[in-house]
């Protein structure tokens, strides 16, 4: 039983700077056919060939699921990250041929909801672009609360206001505008589902307040792809394939495993989906777990690691790969 996604051969059809940090990329199929249909909240994994390095980063699809002539993603430049967003900003131009995965949805709408309440922070707005388009097309009931640093960094805020008017509420940090979260969460009709996408601190805050105010976890949905963090290089033995590899400072463990010619399954590459979960055979050192998939108990046990986002510091690590 194998999992994983099929690949799509695409060409970059347009590159549009949105503001000082965010650029939008458009993809079409090289063969001119329509792209696969997707659902609001889906992401694709973009393969970036940067010299002899390959990076695979997930980005939410932000176009309307009703239009599959092209896919669009928005990438926020991260000057201190591992370089994926910088590569997109500096090296990806219209006409470049790229490979992306089929869409996968790990943040899908609960269509039973009597109302969809959406909370976005910063670049976390992107999955909601597709979800609002999908819901608007079906006459769905939604309300989006969007927090951004300044009006000029409020990516797509104007567009959303134009499309959906008062269903969009904006909050600007520089004007000291704050979402009245407790009040908002206490006045939603029964059957409302809550969706939150943004920085980790925002997600944790919203989940905590919702739980305290009696929201059941089934009605609270969140998406937080952890970007792999850089760290000290470390060595790993892959017991099944009989290889010893070095994980570089700017490389994730999963990328290093792939670079050695071993291909674990993956979907999100952000510590969420569970596909690349790997058993630890032995270790001497400490794990730096960054995923949202394994339980705390798994983290303490030293038996499992999610190589897409987690790292290791110490003398030796042997994995069942």
């Amino acid at each position, binding site marked *: 039983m194998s*999992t994983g996604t*099929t690949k799509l051969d695409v060409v970059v059809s347009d590159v549009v700077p949105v503001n000082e940090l965010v650029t939008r990329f458009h993809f079409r199929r090289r063969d001119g056919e329509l792209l696969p249909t997707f*659902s609001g909240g889906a992401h694709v994994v973009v393969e970036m060939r940067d010299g002899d390095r390959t990076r695979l980063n997930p980005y939410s699809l932000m176009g309307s699921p009703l239009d599959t002539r092209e896919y669009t993603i928005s990438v926020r430049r991260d000057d201190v990250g591992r370089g994926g967003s910088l590569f997109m900003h500096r090296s990806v131009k219209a006409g470049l041929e790229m490979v992306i995965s089929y869409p996968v949805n790990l943040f*899908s709408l609960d269509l039973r909801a009597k109302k969809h309440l959406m909370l976005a922070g910063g670049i976390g707005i992107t999955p909601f672009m597709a979800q609002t388009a999908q819901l608007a097309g079906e006459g769905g009931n939604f309300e989006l609360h969007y927090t951004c640093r300044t009006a000029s960094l409020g990516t797509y805020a104007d567009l959303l206001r134009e499309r959906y008017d008062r269903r969009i509420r904006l909050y600007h940090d520089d004007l000291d505008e704050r979402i009245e979260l407790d009040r908002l969460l206490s006045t939603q009709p029964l059957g409302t589902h809550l969706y939150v996408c943004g920085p980790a601190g925002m997600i944790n805050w919203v989940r905590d307040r919702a739980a305290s105010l009696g929201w059941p976890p089934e009605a609270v949905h969140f998406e937080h792809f952890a970007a792999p963090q850089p760290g000290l290089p470390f060595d790993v033995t892959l017991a099944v394939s009989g290889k010893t590899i070095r994980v570089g400072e700017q490389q994730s463990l999963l990328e290093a495993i792939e670079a050695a010619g071993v291909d674990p399954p993956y*979907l999100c590459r952000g510590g969420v989906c569970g596909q690349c979960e790997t058993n630890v055979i032995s270790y001497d050192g400490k794990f730096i777990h960054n995923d949202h998939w394994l339980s705390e108990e798994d983290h303490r046990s030293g038996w499992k690691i999610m190589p897409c986002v987690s790292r290791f510091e110490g003398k030796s690590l042997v994995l069942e790969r």
Partner: protein
Amino acid sequence: MGITFRKETFRDDFTFRNSPEHIRRFPFPFHEDAYMYAVNIEPHVIGPKGSVLENLIDVDEHYVAEMQDRALVLAEDPLRCQSLPHMTLAGWDLLELLMEQQALGYPEHFTLERDGDRWRWINRPLGIDDTFTFGDTSTLPYGPMEYITRQSQGDFCILDQRDGNLWMDAGMVTTQADWSLDFDIGMNFFEWHAPVPLAHEKGIFVRALKFLTNIQQGKPARRLNWTMTVNPRLDTSPENYHKWGPDRTTVTPENVGDKVHLRVELQSFWRLPRSNGIVFPIRCYLIKMDELVTQPKWARRLHRVIRDLPEELATYKGLTRYRPTLVEWLSKLDDGSATSSGFGPD
């Protein structure tokens, strides 16, 4: 050259038969001389020409007769087709999938023309030529799921995926092996499988669910399941059990070959793109014992499987009453010689 559709019935006078070519392509479900549950899921990819896997959605000589039988069941009991309110979008996904696959596999019988959301669907065997707006329910005579599943062989369950589970929230179920959509609709994966013996203890459903929730668009999967039915009756629903149940008392050594049928389900699993749901088509194939034993390997193997089947499974599959008669009849066709591995006839 197209398919020649048979005129036949699955009730009353039971004129259902398989042609010799259809006997050869029957999806015999036992790859060895014994049977036990396993997570026997594999990628649903195109198989050899002349097999039921020649197309991913199979249409065969029984198509027209099966669709007529479905219409009769629905006229009697409309609750066999239900969709909870949030499942309409998934119904459109299914309509797209079945129209595309049937038109792709059988262009002489089905044509789909798409111009934006303006679609034209031609189904020649059933004499249908409809133009409608994709996504607009008011342009079809039924809801999208009911419309297309009245024109597609097999039962269909549409599952909503939430909270790490699959929920049976819509379906068209008229050829079921003794389970009730009306009762099970709204249940999760473990609940609707609850009456199945032995498999829960073996952890089968936990592993199967993990696999199914990770099914990706463009990568469907499949498995085979089986049971037996007395008379070629498609509608063996619990609703009508008191009507078809007495059939099980009518098996005699003289009529086994004509009355007892192996019933194989080809189940496939597909991610639906707009709704992020999963559709689970359950395609039912029937073959009477007289037809099955024309392949000596199948006769020998079926004898051994039925003879050695654990009692709980025999009871669950409803074989108890006629198993001794069937085993005795099959034993005469089993000379004890080895069978080759794999499903196909020798």
